[in-house]
């Protein structure tokens, strides 16, 4: 089986793969950051006292979670220009990923916050801490610590979802595999190499989450 596997082609396309690897890293890194910010904000809105903020966040989270990312992406790319909003491909792609994963992050963080015993918040209020101090020193460190694993899971989903951006002509890892396949008709070589690069990103994310988890637990102990 291996004798028909063409390593020479892979080597020849390595510069393209490296370029696409960096593109995927950069696109999904930016989207991940954006998605966590959007997730925290919409989670705060969902848990707020104001009914209007609560329902805005509810509509956002529900509508994103109930529709496929590909439909959202096509809407942003082909639909928005007909309404007069024209954005470059990579901006459209990042916005789609941020909006999509942001909704999932909102739910993950909400679960983390609601898992915290209400007694701690009462204790915070009794000690005279303000809302932001309670958030900063009591709730968020624990909520984020508890949710590192599901957050990592969502980050991995986001990286894999970034492969859909190849459909709106963005050049990233999956497109590199498609290019190799369509130019040399070697699907096994093309997509296995793509998969190997995704695996590298996965291990990078896993190492990062392991490191931050240790760090958060260490902090809690002191």
């Amino acid at each position, binding site marked *: 089986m291996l004798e028909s596997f063409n390593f020479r082609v892979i080597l020849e396309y390595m510069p393209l793969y490296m370029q696409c690897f960096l593109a995927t890293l950069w696109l999904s890194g930016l989207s991940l950051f954006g998605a966590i910010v959007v997730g925290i904000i919409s989670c705060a809105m969902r848990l707020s006292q104001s009914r209007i903020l609560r329902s805005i966040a509810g509509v956002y989270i529900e509508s994103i979670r109930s529709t496929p990312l590909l439909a959202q992406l096509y809407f942003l790319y082909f639909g928005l220009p007909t309404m007069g909003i024209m954005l470059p491909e990579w901006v459209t792609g990042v916005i789609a990923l941020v909006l999509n994963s942001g909704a999932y992050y909102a739910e993950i963080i909400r679960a983390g916050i609601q898992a915290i015993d209400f007694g701690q918040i009462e204790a915070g209020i009794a000690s005279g801490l303000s809302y932001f101090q309670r958030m900063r020193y009591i709730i968020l460190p624990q909520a984020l610590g508890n949710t590192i694993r599901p957050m990592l899971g969502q980050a991995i989903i986001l990286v894999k979802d970034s492969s859909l951006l190849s459909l709106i*002509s963005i050049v990233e890892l999956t497109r590199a595999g498609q290019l190799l396949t369509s130019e040399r008709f070697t699907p096994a070589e093309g997509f296995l190499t793509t998969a190997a690069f995704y695996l590298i990103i996965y291990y990078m994310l896993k190492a990062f989450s392991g490191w931050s988890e240790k760090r958060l637990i260490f902090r809690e102990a002191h």
Partner: protein
Amino acid sequence: MKKRKVFTVMVSLAFLFVFFGTAAAGTLDEIAQRGELRIACQTQGAPFSFVDRNGKRTGSSVELCELIAKEMGVKVKFLNYDWDGLIPALLSKKADMLAADMTPTLKRAMKIAFPDPYMYTGSVVFVKQDSPIKTLEDIKAGTKMAVLLGSTGESDAKKVFPEAKFKTYKGGGPLLINAVLAGHVEAGVNDGSSARSQLSNFPPNSVRILEGQLSRSPLAFAVRYDSPDLLRWLDLFFLHIKLDGRLEENLNYWVNSLDWKKDH
């Protein structure tokens, strides 16, 4: 002990013969035995292979394939693929044959075998109706152009306009027209007959095809190189339908006019 050894050798020899026996049978025999011709094709490639408004699979290539199966005396089974999934499907033996509006380029012929071409076409450039681009000469360095991944239009366009900026799409010609209409690109490049038939589904006078073709390219079906019998048979098939006028009838209805629009 010795008896057992002889027995083992005989069994292995028997297996070997069975193995060679099946390997030696040609693709035509296999198809006849199976009673089914498996064809890889697209669903988005009007007027060659597409799903019409009644949800029925039809098109020029589809009717040719039905004719092929009829002449072979077997049933036909169509397998749906995206454009760039066609060749891998053929190579991985999921299909016996590939039927699409494919140009037998020298590069593709490194991997798959093409019978003689049955018609000729060429890539065209299309722009938005109100575009400042009036002729092919107006396309300058940096003009943004939409092409389909792995298509003949892509390689033609890159040859003719090496300085243009290309955006590569995947998922069928209508996407290119959408990209032009949405303003993501200034021009699109696709095969002439496909572009014309796909444009008829869009609002009239929204997109304009520029005068002239980028290339004159043949179209052919394709098989694997390990099916020389099927290849030979297809050459003969196309010769026959060329001589008795069935090919001309097919092409006049589907490709050289928009007659089929009335029925599909």
